[in-house]
C-alpha cells in the first residue's frame, strides 16, 4: 500500500480532484441547475426603451427586446425547459430570487441600439 501511494501519489490526487470536479459540475449544472440564465424578453418600444435587433440577414424587419436574467432553477419551475412559450418568463414575480430585466440605456448601449417611441404617442 505504501509503495502504491509512493508511486502514484500525484496521479491519485489528480484523479481524485478530477472525479470531484466532474461530480460537483454534474450536481451543480445538471441536478440542481444552479446557474443564471439570460434571455431576450418582450419589450414595447412605445412604453419602454428597447434593444433593437434585425430579424433577418437583410435587416428588412426588426424586433424589440429587453434582457432578462434569472436563476435557472426557478425559471424551470415556472416554465419548464422552453421559456419562449412561457409568459411568466418575461416578468419578475414578487417572490422571485434572482431576477432582473435590463432595458436599453442609450448612454451605455449606444443610441443606435436603443429604440424608444414613447414621445411619438
Amino acid at each position: 500500500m505504501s509503495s502504491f501511494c509512493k508511486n502514484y501519489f500525484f496521479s491519485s490526487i489528480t484523479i481524485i480532484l478530477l472525479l470531484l470536479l466532474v461530480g460537483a459540475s454534474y450536481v451543480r449544472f445538471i441536478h440542481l441547475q444552479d446557474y443564471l440564465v439570460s434571455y431576450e424578453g418582450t419589450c414595447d418600444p412605445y412604453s419602454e426603451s428597447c434593444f433593437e435587433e434585425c430579424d433577418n440577414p437583410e435587416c428588412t424587419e426588426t424586433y424589440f427586446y429587453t434582457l432578462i436574467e434569472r436563476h435557472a432553477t426557478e425559471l424551470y419551475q415556472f416554465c419548464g425547459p422552453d421559456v419562449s412559450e412561457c409568459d411568466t418568463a418575461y416578468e419578475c414575480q414578487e417572490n422571485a430570487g434572482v431576477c432582473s430585466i435590463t432595458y436599453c440605456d442609450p448612454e451605455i448601449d449606444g443610441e443606435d441600439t436603443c429604440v424608444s417611441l414613447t414621445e411619438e404617442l
Partner: protein
Amino acid sequence: MICYYFDAPTYFLFASDLPELLYYSHIPVMAVALIVGFFVFFNGRNVLLNKLLLLISLCFALWTFFNLITWTNIDTTLILFVWSLMGPLQAILSILCIYFIHVFLTKKDLPKKIKALLLVLISPVLIFAPTNLALQGFDITWCDAFSYENQTFVLYYTALGLLAMIWIGVMLVKYYRVATGQARRQILFMGVGIELFLLFFFALVYLAGLLTNIGVFQDSRWEMYGLFGMAIFMTIMGFMIVRFKTFAIATQASQVLVVALLVLVASQFTFVTTTTSTILTSVTLLLTSFAGLIIVRSVKKEVRQREEIEELAVSLKKANKRLKELDQRKSEFVSIASHQLRSPLTSIRGYASMLLECSYGKLSKKATEAVSRIADSSTHMTSSIEDYLNVSRIEAGNMKYELSDFNLKVETEHVADDKRKEAIKEGLLVTFKSNLTKQGIVNADIGKTRQIIHNLVNNSIKYTPRGTITIYVHDDTKKKKVYVDIIDSGIGIQSDEIDDIFGKFERAHNANQTNVTGTGLGLFVARKMARKMNGDVTAESKGVGHGSTFRLEMPLVK
C-alpha cells in the same frame, strides 16, 4: 432550459446552420489524435512516454468532443456541464505536455518536486471550475456561456498553456544544444510539433472566446482553427515514428498514418453538400486508399530491409571489434615471441661465424658444410623474425620514421651492390641503371628506404629462377617523383593477384613453383613503410612467366 433560437440536433451531434468547417475541424482531428495515441500506447503499454501521449490524445479528444457538444446542442444544462470541464481539460493538457517533453528529453520520470509544483499549479482550476468563481450562468439567446465566464479564471488556465510553451521551449533549446545527429533532429521535430500545437490550441481558443465575449465576433468559430494544431502535432508524431522509431515503434506506423489520412479524407463526407463534391470526395478517397496501400507495402519492405541491414551492421561491428582485438593480441604475441627468438639466434649466428672462421680450430670439410647450413638457416630465420617484428610494429603504430634528405640513387646503388653477390650465387645477374634529370634527393627515413629496396630486390631474387634483375632509378619532374624499378625476368604474376600480393602473409599462387620459402610479409612491410613516408610500392607484370616489375616511388625534393 433550451436555446429556443436554435434547432435541436439529430443523433446528438448533427445540427443545421453551423459553420461548414465545424465537423471537419473536430471529427477527423479527434480521430487522428485517438488513432495515434492508442496505436502508440498499444505498441508499448509500459513505456511512460507512450502513456503520456495517450493521455494527451484522450484529453484533447475529450475537449474537442465537449466543444462539439457546445456547438451542436441546445440543452443549457448539458452545455454548461461540459463547458465547466473544458477549462480543466486545457489546463491538464498543458501540464501533460510539460510532463511528456520532460520524459522525452530526459528518458526519466518527472522529479517529485516538479510533480508537486505542477499539481499545485493545476489545483485551482480543478477546484474552482464547478463554482461561481469560474462560471456563473448561460446566455440562452446566443446559446453560449462566454459572458458568464470569469475572465481571471480563463486567463489562469490559458496562462498555464503559455507557461507550458515557455517551459518546453527552454528545455528543448537546452537539450538541442548538447544533442547530436538523429537525437538532435528528433528534438527539433518534437519541439516544432508540440509548440505549434500549444500555440494554435491555446492562443486561438482563448482569443476566439475573448473576442466573442466582448462582441467583436458573433460566435467563437475561430477556435476551430486551433484544433488543427493537434493535426500538425500528430502528423509530426507519425513522421517521427516512421523516421526515428520514436516510441519504439517501427513497422506498423505507416498503416496508422494511412488510416489517419483516410479518416481525414472520409470526414469530408460530413460537410459536402453537392453531388459533385460527393463524387470528388469519393474519387479522392479511392485514390488515397490505393496510394496508401502502396505506401504501406513499400514502407513495410523498406523497414524490414533497414532492420536487416542494421542487424547485420551491428553483427559486423561486433565481429570487427573482436577481430581487431584478436589481431592486436596476435601482434603482441608475435612481437614477444620474435624478441625471445632473436637473442638466441644472434648467439647461433655469432658462434657459427666464429666456427667458420676457425676461431676454435680448423673444421673438417663435413663439419664446415654443416656449420655453413646452420649459419645460412639462422640468417634466414633472423630475416623472417625481423619481418614479423616489423609487422607487429606497423600494426601497433610503433614504427618510428626519422626523416632526412638523402640521395635515393646512391642508396639504391649500395643495396644493388650488397645483393649482387647473393644473386650471383643463385645464378642471376643484377644490373643497376639510372636516368635522373634531377639529383634524386628524397626526404625519408634512410634505413627504412634501404629496407624497402632490399625487400623488393630480395623478392625478385627469390622468384627469378634464372635471368637478370635490373634496378633502374629514374624521375618525373612534372610529377615531382623519383622511382626505383626492380625489373626481373622471373615467374611473373597473374593480373588479378597483383593487389593481393601486398597483403599480409599473401603470396602469389605460383610462388611455390620456385621452391622458395617466404613469410609473405616482405611486400606488405615495404608498401606500409613507403606509404608512411608519402611514397608507394606498386607492381606490374605481363603475366605468368613474363617477369615482374616492382616500383618504389617517393616524392622528389630536388
